[in-house]
């Protein structure tokens, strides 16, 4: 039996995910970007760790900062990313699901 996952927060999705990546504020300090990648939902923090720009998804296989060009190429495994910057190596990935138009994020 799988251990119960801790719910971090939930929010209504602004539309159908099939139309592309979406940004959702889950909590006061947590904004995420949600998109489909290789048939599954990927959810990352969308607040750029440098200065907080809203990260954008490119071709569903990388996320990048529109202000300074910080880019994370996505691997297949959860949390597997390759950064183009030596200081900003990681971007947090969350587990989650969409239930009846509501995005639920887990620890």
């Amino acid at each position, binding site marked *: 039996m799988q251990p119960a996952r801790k719910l971090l927060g939930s929010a209504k999705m602004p539309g159908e995910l099939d139309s592309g990546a979406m940004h959702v504020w889950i909590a006061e*300090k947590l904004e995420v970007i949600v998109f489909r990648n290789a048939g599954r939902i990927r959810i990352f923090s969308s607040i750029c760790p*440098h*200065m*907080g720009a809203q990260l954008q998804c490119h071709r569903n296989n990388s996320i990048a900062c529109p202000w300074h060009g910080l880019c994370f190429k996505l691997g297949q495994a959860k949390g597997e990313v390759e950064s183009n910057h030596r200081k900003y190596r990681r971007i947090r990935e969350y587990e989650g699901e969409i239930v009846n138009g509501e995005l639920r994020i887990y620890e």
Partner: protein
Amino acid sequence: MNKARHIIRTVIKNRSRFPIDIVWENAQDLEHVQFLHSRTNKEFHLLYAGKENNSAFEYDIMIYRAKRRLLYFFSFESIGFRRIITDYNIHQVEYIPLFATTSSLNSLLVKSDDPEYPTLMVDEVVMEVPRLLFLLKHWVIKSLHRHARIQCSEDEPFRERRALLRGKGITLPFRIFNDSVWERLCAKFEVRS
């Protein structure tokens, strides 16, 4: 003897819907120009950024190389130096080899009484240009105003985002993003005294 030089001078005013502190963060950040202002800037390379003693600023002086766009499809290179004079005031000098032109900028932010636009940006530009360019003075001035107006409108979403984050208590202060060429290359020196 130096060739005769001609001076073009203009003052450009723009305003922002955001507080002066947020506009100031944006003004100090030059590295965003090639991404956020790709219509008017093609490249930006940080050559050097340095702090003076006990300075509270992220940098006091900056040297850079940039490629500016003119009418989008045409670009030209410039070498620039900027110094933060005090809060809300930056001086900047750029040399543009292609046009044999040197331009200087006194960029000043001022609080405004207008509740809708609380920050006024005043850019004073003084250019030393060859005679041929001086004959096109009105076109040059028009281009400078257009360039500043486009950049200001493109910067407003940046400032809006920074204001949103600040309102949520997310504090990510302005930081230089790239290692400078100085840091990257001088660190490789092997011959020491």
